């Protein structure tokens, strides 16, 4: 990191940022009672189901939580293949 990065506050994660991120995760798990293991299972099954019908980029699939106010949401972000035309 250059002196300019440090000057403007870009640095390795601070303990405050770590606390915030960890809490976000912990609170969602506590509220929804979806364990990290269950989340992984959900992700795997979502990948299986979707890929039965369309081609997807399995490596790029992300299944995460978001929350706004006290409403939690499970969000699946699934990149579809076939977006780029390959020359035959």
């Amino acid at each position: 990191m250059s002196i300019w990065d440090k000057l403007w506050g870009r640095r390795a994660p601070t303990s405050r940022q770590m606390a915030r991120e960890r809490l976000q995760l912990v609170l969602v798990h506590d509220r929804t009672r979806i364990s990290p293991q269950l989340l992984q299972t959900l992700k795997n099954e979502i990948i299986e189901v979707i890929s039965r019908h369309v081609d997807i980029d399995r490596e790029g699939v992300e299944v995460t939580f978001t929350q706004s106010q006290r409403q939690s949401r499970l969000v699946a972000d699934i990149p579809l293949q076939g977006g780029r035309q390959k020359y035959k």
Partner: protein
Amino acid sequence: MAARILTITSGKGGVGKTTATANLGVALALQGQRVVTVDADIGLRNLDVVMGLENRIVYDLVDVVEGRCRLRQAMIRDKRLSELYLLPAAQTRDKTAVSPEDMVQVTEQLRPEFDYILIDSPAGIEQGFKNAIAPADVILIITTPEVSAVRDADRIIGLIEAEGKESAHLIINRLRPDMVRREDMLATSDVVELLAINLIGIVPEDEYIIISTNRGRPAALDDHSPAGQAFRNIARRIMGEDVPFLTIRESPGLLERLTRLVRSRTKPGG
């Protein structure tokens, strides 16, 4: 005069429920309100000591519930404020000595006589907590800006919502703006965003709280205590007044960043 009943709870122990109850009681009484504080922490009573009334206890909440005395006999008038009373907990029993229904009955008897009833909840989520929230019109949740406290506060909010008690407000206690500026403590905005309930007060870390407990004289009585001032502000908000939050500078200015940068580059071995 029909009292509003406020329960002060947190989940996590040691974050300042008893201190807040004592100080809010004093602050409301200073505003001319007629207030009774109720210690619901049966077996581990402390509201008496924080208010400096520990040597006045004759009867307690369990004596009232079990019919050994009249409610009036158990209530202790504050030394300094004539409109402030304490209903102490028992020290030799435990939380099972009283039920949520008992708490509702006792507070219903108190309601016509007071403007505010403040119930100091014990830590935890078991019987003591259930007793404390049963009669509540409003619930004040205390947290500190730390991971464990925020997590427990969230659990409490979930339990309260499940009980159908909608009116919950947050007090962030023991905030250290210097640590927030150094990025080593959660900021007010972080905590409010995570818990997503209405913020009713921010109380800064203040050595004077320890001194006030040593003396048995709540900080809200003192003009020089920042925490005392914060509790007085919260009392006014409870009464419906719109009191702006003290602007606590939580992000570092340019000069502070430069100073930090120079310091880190001139550290020995760095």
